[in-house]
């Protein structure tokens, strides 16, 4: 397991950009690496907080399992759902090839 304290590398920045489906230039790799290093150094202050006795707050609300009746209700028409699409084919969104 990599050490979070170790400095973020250019290769890691490229890996994260790939995970996030973000195209990135060589210049941006260097810039983001340096900026993220700086931000992460500040974030590492969290390590000083003693959290050994506390649970994580995943969500601020006390409400759990909000249920409703399973009834069919009106929803967006296909026409409305496709209205903003850059490319459509009949009742579908049209995208580029999944595989080359």
């Amino acid at each position, binding site marked *: *397991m*990599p050490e*979070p304290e170790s400095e*973020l590398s250019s290769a*890691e*920045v490229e890996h*994260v*950009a790939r*995970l*996030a*489906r*973000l*195209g*990135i230039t060589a210049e*941006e790799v260097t810039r*983001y690496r340096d*900026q*993220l290093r*700086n*931000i992460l150094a*500040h*974030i*590492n*202050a*969290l*390590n*000083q*907080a003693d*959290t050994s006795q*506390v*649970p*994580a*707050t*995943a*969500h*601020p*609300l006390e*409400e759990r399992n*909000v249920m*409703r009746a399973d009834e069919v209700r009106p929803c*967006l028409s296909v026409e*409305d*759902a496709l*209205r*903003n*699409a*850059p*490319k459509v084919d009949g009742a579908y*969104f049209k*995208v*580029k*090839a*999944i*595989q*080359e």
Partner: protein
Amino acid sequence: MNLHGRTIHELHQMLVDREISSFELTQLVYAQIDRVEEKTAAYLTLTRDLALQQARAADERLRDGRDATPLTGIPIALKDVLCVRDVQSTAGSQILKGFVPPYNATVVERLDREGAVFLGKTNCDEFAMGSSNENSGYRPVHNPWDLDRVPGGSSGGSAAAVAAGEAIAALGSDTGGSIRQPAALTGIVGMKPTYGRVSRYGLIAFASSLDQVGPMTRDVTDCALLLQVIAGHDPMDSTSSPRPVPDYLAQLASGVKGMRLGVPREYFVSGMEPGVEAAVRAAIRTLEQQGASIEEVSLPNSAYALPAYYIIAPAEASSNLARYDGARYGFQDGSGRTVIEEYQATRQHGFGQEVKRRIMLGTYALSAGYYDAYYLKAQKVRTLIIEDFKRAFEKVDALLGATSPTVAFPLGAKTADPLAMYLNDIITIPGNLGNVCGISVPCGLAGGLPVGLQVIAPGFREEVALRVAFAYESASGFHNAHSPLLEAAVA
């Protein structure tokens, strides 16, 4: 008769008494927009035709007299992160350029039902990520008090619109201070309700465990009036609370006599401008003179709020913003050969620098090997911050502090250093993580620029924050100070 600078409640009386019509009022506000919008860039989209149509309908309702509400016929601006049916809604991002939602956000629907008039969509930092409005994907907003300075952010367009007289009131959204900080920097009132108090349905998501929609107004009464309409359970948002909504006006003028107000010593952070500290200390004395007892309290984990926030918010954002793929709506780059290349090109050219930085930070924090060290750790620290507030609220009814450690800063002053920009929200972020509510109310000027007093109350006790803010506002009268752009219209 000069109507510029008037509040919702004053204008409502004039509308009811037929001293003016909503149509005239709406035209008057657009006349001010025509005069100053070139200077402020508060709006991304103006909806003049829709507004005049709504104003005519409001006038009929007011003539009828029976179902007119406090908001009927009142011209209001909406932050561009709120979906409005058939009106371009971009969240300040190029990636949503041309996106026309097929539905209304619930808060928009509720205002529409009350007969409010929609002036347009206000400029903001892209996907509400920013504290200066310089991250807008279109153009930066300028502060009506000093056009060379930022209005704060991310709801800077909404704040500037209200402060410049380009709207009577506005809605903003607050994830780490995005309503309160720009309200403070432009001399208006802004409230972040408790998470769950207001529906997020149709709010373009940034960080789903923190985002809240809230009012930005000329005074505390208007804030209560707007909150009354937008608060409450919404079947379309399972995270909206079923708790009943109190009457926010009922206790507004009850005063602070006998109330216990705490001053967290950690909120007077290093780097706070002396003029800001002086104004806030004077405001605290004013509330003491009004009969509140003031005591110092400690929120010992406050220093961890900013680093925890910059894990939690980007992590949630990186997940929320995965939906912008150029396939279903908004910008599509078109240069990719495969679907993956197309995603990468669309997101590279559609998102701005700060949004990409936060997606990277969030993706990194959630990625294999780092989850426990960052995201889980930050969620545990969030628990510590929640407990800090709980302990403080066992002793006091509300907390007082500055909203922002500085007044409005010059455009460009902090754009080169993301971390310096993040520090603007150091005293607003704990409120979002701690799931409490907070309001910023004008508390004077420092060097000719507005300062905000922040009042924080326990979760779902918005009426307490409003009551303290109203007592301060009534005693100080600082809400009557107008920006030069509004002053020119009033004169």
